[in-house]
Structure formats: structure tokens, C-alpha cells
């Protein structure tokens, strides 16, 4: 069980209110991702849930029991830190066993659980090493191992992959997703990488300056972003925003169109411009188009084989059903 409810939770550091009143419910077994730009209060929110910070006001309930004043150790949550926070002087085995030793579990049971966790995480060969003798990905797995042996009600991850290189990150992402499938325990995952958010989450919580901008499944956020901020934050490369005459014609202040929803051609289309930088990813190519008269740059995503060069004339046609309209306050229309 691991249903976490935040009820009008606020947090201030001195006079600075980092989290204004915030309501959120995380359902049991859900993989929830907090995303938002740096400094928006993701870590603070996670630490409030963990109990490492005290709330300034409001209530946190875990499984409908008030946990606001319960110390971190007794909330039944496990946390994986960005720096891993492994105990450097203990072997991997002792690191993983630490929470169980603190819970005064008996030896045999500790050994059984450590072995089980190690085999799940492919750490069996490293049990007698110190954290200093492991690679980044292995350390990350030890940190996760230390979290899973406790069989917590929920896992909290604070940017666990941000210290890893790109390839390893993709691998660990899959491992964590698989772990979630297997354990079906509630997981709260903080990241500022929207690809991680999109690929892993059941539900994404987009935060800005402590406010929840939108909550929803990855595809909901992708298809119907509630405002300009979410529209710009979710999706890579960023959505194109077009203001002015074109937007006014359809009754909006800003028009949004994602790069992948624009078709390109060298003969003719609705819009045209000059190709600036093009980024070839192999499977796709991103063209940054200037001089369209719509916005400073329009980014388009085309097939990898489409071969426009710097300075070429390019014609573009947006998919009409994939246009997003926003009003002057930045809120979605329709």
C-alpha cells in the first residue's frame, strides 16, 4: 500500500515561500514523475514527502493516515538520492543490509533479502566491494538495492540518473521501469529531463515555481497541454509558438505546433523559409528554419533522409488537427 496525499502543503525557507499551497494525490502503485525547471521545488516537495523537511503548513497523508509529524524512518518510504549517498566505509552487502540491521531483523532474513535484492540488480558479484570500487551505474543499483530490501510503501527518487552517461541512463531507465512493473510499488521520481518523464511515468506532475501546472499521463500532456508552459516543457524538440496575424485568424493569441507535425517539401507548402542549422540524428533531421515571418525560428522534424542544406529554401505545411491554440494568458483554448 502506498497512497500519498498532500493536502494544502506549503513550505517556506525563512521568508521565501518555495511551495505555495499544493494539493496532490498519488495513487497506490502509480509511477509519478515530478518534472520542472531547475529550482522549481521538485526536490523540496520530495523531501517534504520523505520527512526530511518539515512542512510549513498543510498535511501529508500516507495510506490515509496523517504522516505530517511522523519522523522519516517511520513513514515506510525509501529514498534514492542523486549522489547515491552510499556509506563509503561499508561493503555493498553492508550498505544494502543497513536498513534491515537498523530494523533489528534477524541475520538469516537479512542475508536472504540482501541476496535476493543483489540478484535482481545484478550485484551478486560485487557484494564484497566498497562503493568506491564500483562504477556509477553499479553504485546507483546499490542505492536502489538499499531501498528495495526494506519493502517500503513507496520509493522516492531524486534525479537518480543525472550523474550517469547517456547510454547508461537509458539502460537504468529501463531497469527502474522494469523494477516498477515487478514490484508494483508506488514510485515518485524527480527529474528535469522530460524524456525520462515521458518514458517512465504513469502520471507526470509538471511544476513551476512550486505550482502544479498540470497533472496527467504523458500522452495527455503531449496532446493537450493546459498552458504555454507545459506545451513548451513537454516534447522534444520544443513546440513552435507563433504569435500575430496567423494566430489571430484562428481566434488565439498564440498558436502552437510541434516540430513533428509539420510536413516539409522543396516545391510548395503553406509556409516557407530558409534553412539555418540542421541537426542530423540519423533517424530524423531537425531543421531550424528562419525568415518565415511567423516566429524567429521554426523547428521542423523531418525524415532522416530529407536533405536540405544550410541556406536552402524550404516549404512547410502544418497538420491542421495538431495545432494548439492559447489565449493571451497562455491558457489552452478548446
Amino acid at each position: 500500500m502506498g497512497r500519498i496525499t498532500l493536502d494544502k502543503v506549503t513550505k517556506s525557507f525563512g521568508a521565501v515561500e518555495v511551495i505555495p499551497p499544493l494539493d496532490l494525490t498519488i495513487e497506490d502503485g502509480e509511477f509519478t514523475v515530478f518534472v520542472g525547471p531547475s529550482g522549481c521545488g521538485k526536490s523540496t516537495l520530495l523531501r517534504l514527502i520523505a520527512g526530511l523537511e518539515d512542512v510549513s503548513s498543510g498535511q501529508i497523508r500516507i495510506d490515509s493516515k496523517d504522516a505530517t509529524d511522523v519522523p522519516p524512518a517511520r513513514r515506510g518510504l525509501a529514498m534514492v538520492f542523486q549522489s547515491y549517498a552510499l556509506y563509503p566505509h561499508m561493503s555493498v552487502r553492508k550498505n544494502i543490509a543497513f536498513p534491515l540491521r537498523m530494523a533489528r531483523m534477524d541475520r538469516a532474513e537479512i542475508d536472504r533479502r540482501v541476496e535476493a535484492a543483489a540478484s535482481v540488480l545484478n550485484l551478486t558479484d560485487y557484494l564484497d566491494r566498497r562503493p568506491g570500487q564500483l562504477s556509477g551505474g553499479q553504485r546507483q543499483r546499490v542505492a536502489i538495492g538499499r531501498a528495495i530490501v526494506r519493502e517500503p510503501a513507496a520509493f522516492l527518487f531524486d534525479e537518480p540518473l543525472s550523474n550517469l552517461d547517456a547510454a547508461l541512463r537509458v539502460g537504468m531507465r529501463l531497469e527502474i521501469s522494469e523494477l516498477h512493473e515487478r514490484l508494483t510499488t508506488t514510485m515518485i521520481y524527480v527529474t528535469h529531463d522530460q524524456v525520462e518523464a515521458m518514458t517512465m511515468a504513469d502520471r507526470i506532475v509538471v511544476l513551476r515555481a512550486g505550482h502544479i501546472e498540470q497533472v496527467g499521463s504523458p500522452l495527455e500532456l503531449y496532446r493537450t497541454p493546459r498552458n504555454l508552459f507545459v506545451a513548451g516543457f513537454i516534447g522534444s524538440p520544443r513546440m513552435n509558438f507563433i504569435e500575430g496575424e496567423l494566430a489571430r485568424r484562428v481566434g488565439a493569441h498564440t498558436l502552437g505546433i510541434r516540430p513533428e507535425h509539420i510536413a516539409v517539401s522543396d516545391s510548395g507548402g503553406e509556409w516557407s523559409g530558409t534553412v539555418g542549422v540542421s541537426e542530423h540524428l540519423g533517424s530524423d533531421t531537425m531543421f531550424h528554419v528562419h525568415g518565415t515571418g511567423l516566429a524567429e525560428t521554426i523547428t521542423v522534424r523531418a525524415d532522416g533522409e530529407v536533405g536540405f542544406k544550410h541556406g536552402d529554401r524550404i516549404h512547410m505545411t502544418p497538420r491542421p488537427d495538431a495545432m494548439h491554440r492559447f489565449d493571451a494568458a497562455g491558457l489552452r483554448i478548446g
Partner: protein
Amino acid sequence: MATRHSRSAARLMMAPAVILLLGWMLVPLTMTLWFSFRKYLPLRGGDLGWAGLENYSRFVSSSAFWPSVQATLIIVGGVLAITVCLGILLALLLDQPMWGQGVVRILVIAPFFVMPTVSALVWKNMFMDPVNGLFAHLFKAFGAEPVSWLSQAALPSIILIVSWQWLPFATLILLTAIQSLDREQLEAAEMDGAPPLKRFWHIILPHLSRAVTVVILIQTIFLLSVFAEIFVTTQGAFGTRTLTYLIFQRVLESQNVGLGSAGGVYAIILANIVALFLMRIVGKNLDR
């Protein structure tokens, strides 16, 4: 520094320092060794020729020798125990955010800047004096008989004085070590269900082990040769005659340079035994 060329260049550049240090060490050492084999009584005829091992056997067979070794070890051990334990406590305390932190930290470090002679005099006259000392007044205020510290409890008194001097050093080093501890480790331990005492025992103390080793090794070097504090207070009486003080008495009070030099060689041996022990016990903390 990996190539052969740069290594030999490094050796060349280090040579002057090494030679200077060697000379600095070797000249007095050889002179001590030389005198220890001579019968040398400056006021009673000067250098009276070869003495063989007589100085060595006389120094050890003197009834003052073993008690002096014992006194030395008790002082070193006592001061180490007090400074390390209190140092850890103080460092933990100073690490907490509190009002007036900067001033408090400077105050804690202050004793280290007081010269040993001065601090011993201050302790002797202002605190431990059986008539005018602060302790005497305190005892009288509670209706107790004042203790004459430096004669009734001379060794503990000296340990107290020396500890007071070295506590800031230990505190300072341990404080910097505590400050270098990753906060997330403590938070992780907290989430893992470790109460404060267990966090101290399983996380903070192992983290401090290297700093404690450094404190112990450096302090031992200086504590083996404690002198001013004894000279100013008890003059070696009441069981406070350490090996260093015994050598001083042999050389200056009995005017026997040869005997004193033999004592000096014993002091070197003692220091090495102590160092060997320490390296065995705590030295493994260093190679990590």
C-alpha cells in the same frame, strides 16, 4: 609525474630540502649518539674519555627510569583520550547551526595560541593554587577542603593542562572532517531508520576515523616531549617526571651530558615503539 624524466627532475628539485632536513636531523642525532658513549661531565673535568655502554646501563638501572617511562605513557595516553573524545563532542557541537558561531569557534581555538609556559603558569597560579586558585575558592564555596592539585593529583593536573592546550587542535581538525561529511549520507541513514546515536556510530565515526588518526599521530609526536608544563608546575615531583624531564635533570641538574645523551637515545627508542604501536592500531585508516 608519471614519466621517468619528470620523476628524476622532481628528485633533483626535492634534493635541497631533503639534504637540509637530513642534516638537521643527523647532526644532533650523531652528536647525541657520540656523547652517549663518553663520560662527559662539563663542570667536573669535561670530556673524560670513552665510557662504553656504562651510560646506558646506568640510565636504565636508575630507580627513576621505569617510573618516568610510565609517567610519559600515562600523560600521552590520557591527553590523547581526553582530546579525541572531547574534540569529537565539541566538533559535533560546533557543527550545529547556532547563534554566534564565528565567535564561539574562535574562542574554542584560542588556547592553541597560548604558549605552553604561559598556560601552565596560568593554570598553576589562577586555577590550581590551593589558597588563591579558582578551584580552591569553588571548593570552599561548597564547604569542601581545597585540594592541592599539583601535589595531591599531580599527574591528572598535568594531563588536564596539556589537554586544554591540545583540545583546540583536535577540535579544529575533527570539525573540518565533520563538515566534509556528505549531508545526504546522514539523511539516507535517517531514512534507513538509524536514530541519532546509531547515525553517529555507523556514519559519522567511520567518516572521522582518518581525522582521528591524524590527530593521534601528530599529537603523540608533541606529547612525548612535553616539558614546559612540568618544568613550570611540579618540576618533576609527585610522579610527574617524564622521560624528557629525567633527561633534562641528568644533563642540567646533575651536569652529566653522557648519561643524558644515553637517555635521549632511549627516548628515541620509546618514541619509535609508540609510533609502531600507533601505526599498527590506527595507521591502516590512512591508506584508503
